């Protein structure tokens, strides 16, 4: 098992799937000759050529639609949208075409596309380059939404997503491409549904996904070391569908829940997880569940304000202590 960077894991998945199946192609802005803004397709242009590694014009909605149309005939496009902020422009084709054709056609036509895109707040990129959009995609019936928190997940999820018959949106994070992690040397396919217990605990469950899993893990460590609180950390790597059973099981064990998301709380992952807890295991709760989320503002440029808008591990610790009345 080798330690590689997140971007290398994504790149390896592309490379293996493209070798495995000539119908796998990738497309997006500056992914070919340049190799991708985050190097996720580095070297693939030279290896597979311009027919299969396609530098697209800046036409998000239409190149996404083009990928979807190609998928109707068995092509397996991996579409990179340079930043999730630009995915707003492609929502029409993702939501109205990819997610709905199977249903509208009574099961005749499927759109097995993968759309992957980095979201999240990085370093002072300003309001139009800092959005988190997973909540928008989660609301679309017929679309799977997954979000890796480690290089292993990034690698294994992309490979499964390419082979899955459903359209899949993979939510990555701009700050995570240089993160290192172990990825199996042999081929590995990560599930697209479910959740993963990344730390066991008995006192409270911290739910995270993508970057917030790491905040949860840091917080859990501090809570254990300094406060004697043993937090369980659940990685909700599948945002649609959410793992109802996994959420219920953990909360039924710890009786307390904090949902941690980088996005704003309004109609977000936290809201959804709390609704599931209410519906499935309300009477198991020893305390009202809490959310640790962003402030509901366009992300400011100023560094101090930017940090203040986005939660971190300290905020998670503070929320848990508050919950325990400490």
């Amino acid at each position: 098992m080798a330690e590689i960077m997140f971007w290398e894991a994504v790149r390896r998945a592309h490379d293996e799937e493209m070798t495995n199946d000539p119908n796998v192609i990738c497309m997006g802005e500056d992914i070919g000759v340049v190799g991708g803004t985050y190097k996720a397709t580095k070297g693939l242009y030279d290896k597979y050529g311009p027919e299969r590694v396609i530098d697209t014009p800046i036409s998000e909605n239409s190149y996404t639609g083009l990928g979807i149309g190609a998928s109707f005939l068995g092509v397996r496009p991996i579409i990179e949208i340079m930043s999730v902020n630009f995915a707003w422009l492609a929502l029409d084709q993702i939501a109205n075409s990819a997610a709905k054709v199977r249903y509208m056609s009574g099961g005749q036509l499927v759109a097995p596309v993968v759309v992957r895109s980095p979201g999240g707040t990085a370093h002072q990129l300003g309001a139009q380059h800092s959005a988190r959009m997973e909540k928008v995609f989660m609301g679309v019936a017929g679309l799977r939404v997954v979000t890796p928190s480690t290089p292993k997940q990034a690698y294994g999820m992309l490979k499964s997503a390419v082979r899955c018959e459903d359209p899949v949106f993979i939510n990555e994070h701009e700050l995570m491409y240089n993160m290192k992690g172990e990825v199996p040397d042999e081929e590995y396919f990560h599930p697209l549904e479910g959740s993963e217990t990344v730390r066991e605990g008995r006192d409270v469950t911290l739910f995270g996904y993508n970057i917030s899993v790491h905040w949860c893990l840091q917080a859990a460590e501090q809570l254990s070391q300094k406060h004697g609180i043993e937090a369980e950390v659940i990685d909700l790597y599948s945002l649609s569908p959410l793992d109802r059973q996994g959420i219920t099981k953990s909360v039924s064990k710890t009786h307390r829940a904090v949902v941690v998301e980088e996005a704003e709380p309004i109609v977000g992952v936290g809201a959804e997880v709390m609704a599931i807890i209410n519906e499935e295991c309300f009477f198991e709760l020893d305390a009202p569940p809490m959310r640790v989320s962003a402030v509901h503002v366009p992300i400011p440029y100023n560094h101090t304000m930017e940090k203040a808008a986005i939660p971190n591990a300290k905020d998670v610790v503070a929320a848990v202590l508050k919950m325990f009345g400490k």
Partner: protein
Amino acid sequence: MSLKIDDKKRLLREMLFSRRFEERCYEAYVERKIGGFLHLYPGQEACAHGVLEAARPGFDYVITSYRDHVHALKCGADPKAVMAELFAKETGICKGRGGSMHIFDVDKHFMGGYALVGGPFPLAAGIAKALQLQKREEIAVCFLGDAANNQGTFHESLNMAALWNLPVLYVCENNLYGIGTRIDRSTAVVDQYKRVSGYGIAAEQIDGQDVEAVYAAAVKAVKHVRSGKGPFFLELMTYRYRGHSMSDSNAYREKAEERRWSKRDPIIMLRDRLIEAGKLTREDYKALDDEILEEIENEIIKFAEESPEPDVAELEKYVFAENDPWVNGGPANG
């Protein structure tokens, strides 16, 4: 290239069938057998029929808007299943899940009707990209209205189609209106074929009421696309005889304009030519019409009416693939 007499007679039958099919949909809508939005095709028959006569229906891939029944039929969709879809039945071509605006017959390479104006432009380019990648002989044919050309997808998709030399034929059925807005009130350049010159795409404007003219132009267009010369844009000047949809009063059009176009009915024009040439009599035509009406009533409508509705217990079927092993980490993971 011109059509043989037998082909013209068959086309006449197919076009008349399309007309009667759509008129019967109108009645069924009034009877509340059909719900939702219903966009009918009368007046524009020469477009779908003329173009697809020159392509290979059932082989080439066809995609269009919500005004889609006749394109599906021409590709070979079973009219019983199309009507049953409009009646929202389980025997419908999309099992009652699609409706009038979303007819699909993937076996016949009819890749669907889409309700978002301009949505199919990139999908058609994508189908063409797949055909190019897979080195196949089929082409993609995309039929859309004139007003759709004001969407960004028109420009974005035509740019990519030209850039990558994709085998796609874009057919613009220019019926002069987008709902109630006449083209000169929405569009700076009224001649649509001129708009694609900026992308270096070959284009032509043709009388869309004359099925023989449409056919002749489409033969050239299809040949261009199939021979690897890249996309082609065919603008067909046409007119719809009814309102935009069933909820449209049609009050925005001048009666004189409607009368002018009704004198250029594509079916009557073809019929009269055949009569003049001594290949058809008025009696033949009447008999043909009666036979079609009888088929629609006694077979198609009957089938749609007698079919069962879908089982509500299957509401969540067709959202995702069933038992896709990759969802759980691949076949090895059981």
